[in-house]
């Protein structure tokens, strides 16, 4: 087998090294837990409470509106530490603006900031979004609501003022998600709002016919609304003008540049029916490419996150659906074929079954340069009795009108896909994913909704803020000990929108090139950091950074040291390091 002694010696040495590595690796795998639950210690344990309705359909609606727990990350005061806005949904419940004190504790400053009051008899908070709509460098805040959305202008100094009416965003919606990106490259981010119910007053409905007309092809939902940013503090509804006329039960929106043409495309995840994929034509309009790109599905899309999980230079998409004993839909991991078509590879990669899925986020928790995936799940975790037989008794009634809320059985204290364990999928270097949630203590059984990923202590390790329905959130501090290198970029547009939303960053280090981008709020029920983070593995030097700004400018930087947070301004050759102020 071995041609000579030298070859044998080499092979033996290699075998010993592999053996030692396995032992060391084994010890690490068995012993280490890399996320610490610091929720209470950090001061962010305020409970979310679902909205209780007071109308003739309240006993039915309670089961179908266990939504509204969300978390959105931004450094709203520019002190170098990421803060987080968290919604409640109960009538009179206060939303929370957790200011990061820089030591992994937070102070709720929502009241003094003027952004706490998002829940009253006519409005229930369901999501939130930070976006710098006026390019003043301060992230502004949209509170997404069943009812009327609220836009708060960030005035600086920790103060906000509501400008919804002035901005032209008044309008009844049962909104559940919002993202912002500059679809037409005019230098201002535009607003995309997804709504669940059609615009009926769900608090006092005038008709009982406002529930989904079908479980698989419902088209009586709220659809999406696109507001063009006029650049003067106002917005114009351009939904139909730019190619959208949808009435699905939207749950999430995700933008990303599917074909690397410089224009961000849009994935729309819909409950009770077909997800949609729209291509940005680059002329201020979009084209529905659903059939060619992903086909028509009948599933229950909940989440749309974009990330290049296989490091092939194209952004892929992760969509959660429902997978349970009674409904085996399976999630989608849409592998980007590079030609505006996608192939679902969820099953072969081991990420198809996450129960009743909600938020799913790509992030690299061990900084090895491969995007991992965290997924939260569970609809209603209540009593021991299951609601499944009730719902299927209704479903199998001949000629039943699903749109009529009166036909839906009340859930009472029954559970539906409850007490499901969360999943933390480690990316096994592009060969598939392995669930490490239990090992790292992030496999709770609360009804998870949103996942906000951010580096709250600027140590290069990505932490997690999890919004749970009707429950306390989780703040998980990442304490991983791999020693892997990392880098983060905080981008500022000059010609492009100031928040640089849509900017793509390609980092070359250790002989490989990784792709990420500044996203404007992708992922259900949460907004993650707008910094672009890369795990670099063993590479301590970044050979090349290429930034493709939304303006079209390509900016290249070379020979950067790892383990820093760089601030980069569009077109400016010099980089700065982020200086955080406690």
């Amino acid at each position, binding site marked *: 087998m071995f041609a000579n002694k030298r070859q044998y010696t080499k092979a033996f040495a290699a075998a010993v090294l592999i053996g030692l590595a396995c032992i060391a690796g084994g010890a690490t795998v068995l012993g280490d837990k890399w996320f610490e639950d610091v929720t209470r210690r950090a001061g962010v344990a305020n409970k979310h409470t679902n909205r209780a309705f007071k109308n003739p359909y309240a006993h039915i609606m309670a089961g179908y509106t266990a939504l509204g727990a969300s978390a959105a990350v931004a450094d709203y005061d520019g002190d170098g530490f990421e803060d987080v806005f968290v919604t409640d949904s109960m009538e009179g419940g206060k939303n929370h603006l957790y200011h990061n004190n820089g030591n992994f504790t937070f102070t709720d400053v929502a009241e003094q900031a003027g952004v706490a009051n998002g829940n009253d008899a006519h409005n229930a908070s369901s999501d939130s979004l930070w976006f710098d709509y006026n390019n003043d460098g301060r992230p502004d805040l949209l509170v997404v609501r069943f009812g009327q959305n609220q836009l708060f202008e960030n005035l600086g100094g920790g103060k906000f003022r509501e400008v919804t009416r002035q901005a032209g965003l008044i309008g009844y919606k049962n909104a559940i998600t919002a993202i912002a990106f500059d679809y037409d490259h005019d230098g201002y981010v535009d607003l995309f709002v997804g709504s669940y119910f059609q615009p009926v007053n769900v608090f006092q409905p005038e008709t009982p016919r406002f529930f989904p007309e079908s*479980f*698989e*092809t419902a088209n009586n939902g709220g659809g999406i609304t696109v507001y063009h940013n006029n650049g003067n503090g106002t917005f114009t509804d351009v939904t139909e003008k730019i190619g959208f006329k949808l009435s699905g039960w939207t749950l999430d929106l995700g933008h990303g540049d599917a074909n690397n043409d410089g224009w961000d495309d849009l994935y729309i995840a819909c409950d009770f029916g077909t997800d949609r994929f729209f291509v940005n034509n680059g002329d201020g309009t979009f084209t529905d490419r659903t059939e060619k790109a992903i086909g028509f599905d*009948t599933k229950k899309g909940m989440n749309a996150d974009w990330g290049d999980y296989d490091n092939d230079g194209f952004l892929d998409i992760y969509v959660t659906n429902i997978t349970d*004993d*009674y409904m085996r839909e399976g999630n989608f991991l849409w592998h980007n074929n590079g030609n505006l078509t996608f192939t679902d590879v969820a099953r072969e990669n081991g990420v198809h079954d996450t129960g009743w899925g909600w938020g799913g986020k790509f992030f690299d928790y061990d900084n090895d340069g491969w995007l991992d995936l965290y997924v939260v799940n569970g609809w209603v975790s209540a009593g021991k009795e299951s609601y*499944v037989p009730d719902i299927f008794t209704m479903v*199998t009634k001949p000629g039943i009108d699903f749109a009529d809320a009166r036909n839906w059985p009340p859930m009472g204290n029954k559970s539906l896909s409850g007490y499901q364990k969360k999943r933390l999928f480690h990316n096994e270097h592009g060969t598939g994913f392995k669930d490490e949630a239990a090992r790292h203590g992030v496999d709770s059984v609360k009804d998870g909704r949103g996942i906000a990923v951010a580096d709250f202590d600027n140590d290069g390790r990505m932490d997690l803020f999890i919004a749970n329905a009707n429950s306390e959130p989780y703040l998980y501090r990442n304490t991983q000990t791999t020693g892997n290198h990392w880098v983060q970029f905080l981008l500022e547009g000059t010609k492009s929108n100031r928040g640089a939303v849509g900017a793509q960053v390609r980092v070359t280090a250790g002989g490989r090139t990784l792709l990420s981008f500044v996203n404007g709020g992708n992922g259900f029920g949460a907004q993650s950091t707008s910094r672009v983070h890369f795990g670099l593995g063993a590479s301590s030097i970044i050979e090349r950074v290429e930034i493709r700004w939304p303006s079209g400018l390509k900016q290249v930087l070379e020979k950067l040291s790892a383990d820093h947070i760089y601030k980069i301004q569009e077109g400016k050759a010099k980089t700065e390091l982020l200086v955080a102020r406690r």
Partner: protein
Amino acid sequence: MKRILIGTGLCVLVALGAMPDLSKLEAALSADPDNIRYGSEYRQAVIQTKEYDRSLKFFEKLVADHPTSGNAYLNYGFAYVDKIPVAGSITQVILANTALSHFSKSIELQPSWIGYYTRGNSYLYWPKIFNRAHLGVEDLEQCMKLQKADKPRSYHVRAYIALGDGYWKMDDTPRAKGIWQEGAKIYPNNAQLKARLSKDGDELKTYIDDVLDPNKRVDTDLHEIWEAQ
């Protein structure tokens, strides 16, 4: 080449890729609605052409015109089963439920081994939460009685497999293994029995869950029935 039989034993050779003429098959079946073979071959042709809704309409009319034909109802139920893999998850439930009602009608009109086996096996595809496995076991036990009173036939092995699956779904694994073992004595080379008997615990669960996955097409070709006569 795929062989499709129609009419009075007329053998039509359909080149691979060419679509069968459903009209001819429908005419043959209309003339002989209780012919289990024609019904089965028609449905296999429908699967090939993906004309599921046409098939459902055809059978709806067939049973209306021949309300006492047990095999017409049996094939009508199968027509719903044939559509399940191409349907959404909720529609799958509706189709499966409707199929069950037609299988029941078939048994009511014409109790038979195939009727009990079909309905019993169908119950096993329902998730545990619906508590239908015991109904499946009742049917499959009846099926077992019928086959024990009959001369041995190759398709009888299916009842051993399904009844064991039913016991397993009712959390009685020893009883499941017992009936599979009984079957294996008669059909020692049956791969499905061997597979079940070689597995335990999670491995067995994964195997049976996979077998009873509603997203996978169930083989509803009934050729074994007439070939074993």
